[in-house]
């Protein structure tokens, strides 16, 4: 039963909470099923797509950058945009503009766009389901 639309609001910055991974798992699952997904990244979540994210080595494990293959959330999200394209599904990612400004997070990967609360409301009203994953 593909072709539905889910809108998800997220708030957590990367590397701070298990919520980010769970949210992306839900996005991926929906896309794989051919559903459309609208993401409204609010607050710290606007940092998830920052272009300047860099993987790092692990001095505790003695691994190099290449060996450690430390994930960056920007890579995961870029992969989800690619998945959406492959599945013919739409992934719409809005970074809340004011949140972006105050965090200096304006340089992001290809895919997301700047927006605001009105975008979240409009997306929600046009969706089959809305899920808010707040930060604690």
């Amino acid at each position, binding site marked *: 039963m593909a072709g539905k639309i*889910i809108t998800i609001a997220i708030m957590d910055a990367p590397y701070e909470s298990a*919520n980010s991974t769970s949210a992306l798992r*839900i996005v991926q699952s929906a896309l*794989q099923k051919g*559903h459309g997904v609208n993401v409204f990244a609010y607050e710290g979540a606007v940092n998830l797509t920052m272009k300047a994210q860099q993987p790092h080595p692990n001095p505790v494990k003695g691994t190099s950058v290449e060996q450690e293959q430390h994930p960056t959330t920007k890579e995961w999200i870029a992969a989800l945009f690619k998945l959406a394209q492959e599945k013919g599904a739409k992934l719409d990612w809005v970074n809340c503009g004011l949140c972006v400004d105050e965090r200096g997070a304006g340089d992001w990967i290809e895919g997301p766009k700047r927006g605001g609360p009105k975008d979240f409301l409009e997306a929600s009203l046009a969706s089959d*389901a809305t899920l*808010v994953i707040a930060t604690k």
Partner: protein
Amino acid sequence: MGKYVLIESRAPFDGPDSEQFYELAEGLAKRGNETTLFLIQNGVLPTRKRSRYNGMLSRLVESRVRVIADRFSLRERAIRSPLEAIIQADVDTLVDFILEPGTKTIWH
């Protein structure tokens, strides 16, 4: 009546909020709503057998709340055989439930 998917990401060992979320699930089910409690992240911790919340989770199932634990979260925490009353499923199942018409989804 309506349909609810309540997603609990936290453990009741952390404080009273999760217990109150369980009570909400029970209250919604008692009102005749089709109610699912999906446990994810640390929310699966009380499903380990002999945890002090086994009784509460079993009561929820008896109150006709469908209690599901995320397989990945269970595996991540080495909970190999959770309470029998709990259904194990993946996020794919969660997405199906969320997109059922008329469903309200609440993340805690």
